[in-house]
């Protein structure tokens, strides 16, 4: 793979999608306000849960804020990259414009996953990191190289898992043509990631760890943040992320063989 070329193309993607988004100033403003209100609303909801309880599933309010911070960062990434691109896959397949993507001398998964960005999602990422910095302060977390490395690894793994599940669902459009609902269901499940895994019953914990690994996405990075995660959990997250990423890639290449293109 020619990395220099891919970097050059990605720069162009950034440039064109930023320019497209900036054509609609009001829309960006509304998105920014929505991001701020959404974070305030989530913290308010969390504080209601903790009004009569000092802990939920063994997690105190200050600790749960870490999960909220990580969720906000991931949601920001979702809104910046996944939402504008992966929802477009359904459109590409339904309308047959995937033809143009497949006929370009560039990896089709790279093209359809990264072509667009929604700049308003950046604010959520920044707000999420601000919340995490605040959490570091109130939870008196010791900062060192191991802490940063493990946080980075687990957050990257979470992004990979989230991306893979979404991409996998979008790929099924090649057979099912319309899968808007499936991605909506995934987004709903993602909201569950705002709460510690231990706050759910055993059966739900199994479901959200094995079938739809939402638990890995926020809980493990949060545990790493608090220094309470066990090594096997981190390793498991890395393995799950790699398996999901590779499977989604293989699945995409397999699905393309069944692409019949839309009629003209």
């Amino acid at each position, binding site marked *: 793979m020619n990395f220099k070329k891919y970097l050059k*193309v990605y720069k162009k993607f950034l440039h064109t999608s930023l320019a*497209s988004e900036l054509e609609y100033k009001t829309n960006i403003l509304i998105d920014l306000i929505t991001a701020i209100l959404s974070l305030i609303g989530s913290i308010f909801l969390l504080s209601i849960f903790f009004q009569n309880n000092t802990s939920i599933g063994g997690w105190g309010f200050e600790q749960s804020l870490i999960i909220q911070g990580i969720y906000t960062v991931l949601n920001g990434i979702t809104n910046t990259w996944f939402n504008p691109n992966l929802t477009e896959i359904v459109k590409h397949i339904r309308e047959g414009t995937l033809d143009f993507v497949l006929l*370009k*001398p560039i990896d089709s998964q790279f093209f359809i996953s990264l072509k667009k960005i929604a700049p308003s999602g950046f604010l959520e990422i920044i707000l999420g990191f601000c919340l995490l910095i605040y959490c570091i302060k109130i939870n008196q977390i010791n900062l060192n190289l191991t802490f940063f490395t493990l946080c980075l690894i687990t957050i990257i793994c979470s992004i990979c898992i989230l991306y893979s599940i979404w991409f996998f669902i979008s790929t099924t459009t090649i057979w099912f043509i319309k899968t808007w609902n499936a991605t909506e269901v995934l987004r709903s499940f993602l909201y569950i990631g705002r709460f510690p895994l231990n706050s759910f019953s055993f059966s739900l914990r199994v479901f959200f760890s094995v079938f739809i690994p939402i638990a890995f996405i926020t809980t493990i990075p949060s545990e790493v943040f608090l220094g309470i995660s066990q090594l096997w959990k981190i390793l498991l997250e890395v393995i799950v992320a790699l398996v999901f990423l590779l499977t989604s890639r293989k699945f995409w290449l397999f699905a393309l063989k069944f692409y019949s293109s839309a009629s003209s």
Partner: protein
Amino acid sequence: MVQNIIDVRNLSKSFDISSKEQGLKGTIKHFFRRQTKSLKVIKDISFEIKEGEIVGFLGANGAGKTTILKMLCGLIYPSEGSILVSGYLPFRRKENFLKNITLIMGQKQQLIWDLPPIESFYLNASIYDLDKFEAKKRIKKLSEMLEIDEELFIPVRKLSLGQRMKSELLAALIHEPNILFLDEPTLGLDINAQRNLRKFLQKYNKETNATICLTSHYMKDITSLCKRVICVHDGTISYDGKLDLLLKKLSPVKEILIVCRSVEDAIKLENSGFTVKNKIKNEITIIVENNSTTSSLKTILNNFDIEDLYINEPPIDEIIGKILIKKDYGI
């Protein structure tokens, strides 16, 4: 000797199609127990196309023209048979193959809707690994050929259909492909825009010796661009050869409108043994075989007092219309 750039052997393609009965009952049945059947849309076709040729694919809606084009450019996997395009198996979509071809669809667009076309051109240039200088040079050359200038800097959503199509062409040709697949490129364009597009394609073919495979329902596109046509009927090739030969075969006669000096002359001509289509006062229309046009004209001019005459070819649309519904032309 000119080499074959496209070689298709015994190509077939089947699709699984689901059908639904009418009404609510049919809808419920369709939801729970979808009936699908395999439909063979392309049936064992073979043909070759030489480098630099412009070939028109003719056929009714649903005959299989677009499916053939999509298999040629590697979008659809063939069910049976083999395809070689520029020495490559298209469906493998190798980088060097993709750099050699382009697909332009009149009803679909690749330009970024909210931005001026120039942004899409540079994005495509980076995908095809062209440096900025080379991209600028090619954009300048193609925009001159397409006669577009200011439009390059106006958001696509504000361009007319004709301007948009020209920009689509530029975006699709920036990498200077030598095989062009065009699926109804003039769809929805006005007469002038259609003519300009055809002029451009002729010029592009002449200058670059690019091979062009074209489908269109506008007969003028076919007649002015393609010497050779491949007629597709129900997934099979019903004719592959020169367009003029096909037209002659399907329409072996000409109509001659003769304006006589007097009504008496017209009556005399009517009774002279020619096949008369109609007669109004001193104007008479006769039908003659293509191969006897010259001798018939000689006879008329020598024996009758003629004021004026017009030779009419039957309307091309009428002839092509026959092609769309006919399976065998006896050629």
